[in-house]
């Protein structure tokens, strides 16, 4: 089973070291890790560094990888004006590096993923005709058909309604467990992070502030220091932890 660990990892944007010295505990197959932090904290940069799109110091240790598509990164920007149907755009993600011919098993796999994300009704719509939320779901499908062992998702639920957010996060957590995948999700909604993540990694100003069990990492002190807010963490009627923000801290 795949395992991932970051050891003193940094990332350059041009010549500037944008992220530095990120060291995590070993992340194991089946885990969902929420990466949280303020805007421009370095979450996307860290993901691009792990994927190999950016260079930087440190070591990214991956053990037990089996497939050629070990890591897939789902970028934040899902806008695309290519004249392609949703189905074609998902198929091309699956067929990268392969022959022109499309087999029945290729198409069955695309159908399976689209059905799982409940986007079959838009299968033959042009990408340009989709809403922001639909684009995000298509982008998730494109990442899933790569069959990665480590999946990095950059704010995958930012354009989704509440119902879809819960559906997608719940699905990704179950998918991580069933496929033995490590899923890292950059997310702003701390309540969703508390509810769905096995681990939370906090990043601010390009440096890691904490990484560990969600409840141990998301604390009132962390919220004040990193997000500059006065907040409480309370249990809801379903016994889930919830962050309640009382105001900004100056």
């Amino acid at each position: 089973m795949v395992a991932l660990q970051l050891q003193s990892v940094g990332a350059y944007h041009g010549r500037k070291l944008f992220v530095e010295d990120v060291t995590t505990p070993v992340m194991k197959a089946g885990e969902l890790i929420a990466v949280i932090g303020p805007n421009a904290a370095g979450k996307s940069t860290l993901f691009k560094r792990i994927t190999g799109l950016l260079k930087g110091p440190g070591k990214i240790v991956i053990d037990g990888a089996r497939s050629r598509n070990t890591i897939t990164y789902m970028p934040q920007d899902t806008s695309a004006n290519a004249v392609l149907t949703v189905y074609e755009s998902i198929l091309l993600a699956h067929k990268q590096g392969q022959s022109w011919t499309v087999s029945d098993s290729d198409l069955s796999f695309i159908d399976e993923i689209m059905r799982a994300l409940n986007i079959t009704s838009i299968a033959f719509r042009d990408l340009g005709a989709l809403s922001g939320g639909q684009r995000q779901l298509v982008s998730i499908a494109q990442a899933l058909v790569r069959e990665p062992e480590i999946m990095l998702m950059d704010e995958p639920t930012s354009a989704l309604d509440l119902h879809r957010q819960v559906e997608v996060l719940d699905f990704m957590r179950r998918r991580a467990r069933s496929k033995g995948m490590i899923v890292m999700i950059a997310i702003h909604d701390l309540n969703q992070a508390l509810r769905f993540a096995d681990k939370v990694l906090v990043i601010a100003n390009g440096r890691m502030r904490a990484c560990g069990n969600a409840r141990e990492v998301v604390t009132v002190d962390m919220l004040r220091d990193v997000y500059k807010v006065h907040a409480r963490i309370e249990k809801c009627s379903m016994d889930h932890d919830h962050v309640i923000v009382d105001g900004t801290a100056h």
Partner: protein
Amino acid sequence: MAEIAALPLPIEAEAGRERYRALARRKLLILAAMTAALCLSFAVDLAWGPARYSLGEVVAALINPSSVSAQIRAVVWDIRMPVAVMAIVVGAALSVAGAQMQTILANPLASPFTLGISAAASFGAALAIVTSVSILPVAATLLVPVNAFIMALIATLFIHFISQMRGVSVQTVVLLGIALVFTFNALLAFLQYLASEQALSAVVFWTMGSLTKATWPKIGITLAVLLIALPLFARHAWALTAIRLGEDKAASFGVNVRRIRLETMLIISLLAAVPVSFVGTIGFVGLVGPHIARMILGEDQRFFLPGSILSGALLLSVTSIVSKSIIPGVVFPIGIITALVGVPFFFSLILSNRSRSW
């Protein structure tokens, strides 16, 4: 497999697979229809001219030359054939060059003409015609095409390297291309001002673009470049399609975007420069050929690439027929006619199919 099962499924999975197969079949049928139209246009191009022949006579001259008169044989094979074949080969090459330029620069305005490559070639040709200055040491007969080719190549590579620089947006690249058009046009005007009357008329004729300069060696070279380019593009069909989804998205699919951009741009520089150096400036086909293919076939390169080849070849082949039909006995420079034929068609396509255009 874990599923989100809260909402009912609007269509069954099998329906998705079948619909995709039907879509692919429809695209193959469109490609077959375009091929048939191109064959017809080619035959009409051979039949049309001061001496008009029936399609039956043309087909007979092609299949069994000894069955037709020596005059028909000579007109079809020696006079009209090189022009008709050159129209197809040049149309295909310029259209594919435009298609891949638009793909890798993510810009609907990209084409050899709009990014200054044709203007650079015109300047190179004019330099040879007016001053006999050669950029490379070559024989006098090759001076014009070689100069045109080298300048076109320099312009293409310049555009490419600027587009690779950090922080350079797509809009910047187009602005740069327009700046190149103005720069080379100014240099061309400067040379025209200095030129003798004879050289001036040669330069003007060259810049209008003409297929009458077609010879079998020129056709062979252009075709060779096309035949080298197409397998390389075909090999990267999935990757090139992915680049249209955005650089980050393509990279997330494992595509080495920088390497494919560099390879593609180098091939484009040959595809754009070689035809222009042989037949002069033909502006419209490299821009519109790909747009026509995109609107009717979409941007899956497995269909878009052959579609661009066929639409460019068909556009220039029809233009070749029109160029000799306006005034009997007169062959108009094809660069003038291309836009006159293509613009009304292009407008009608855009207006009838707005959602599928860029």
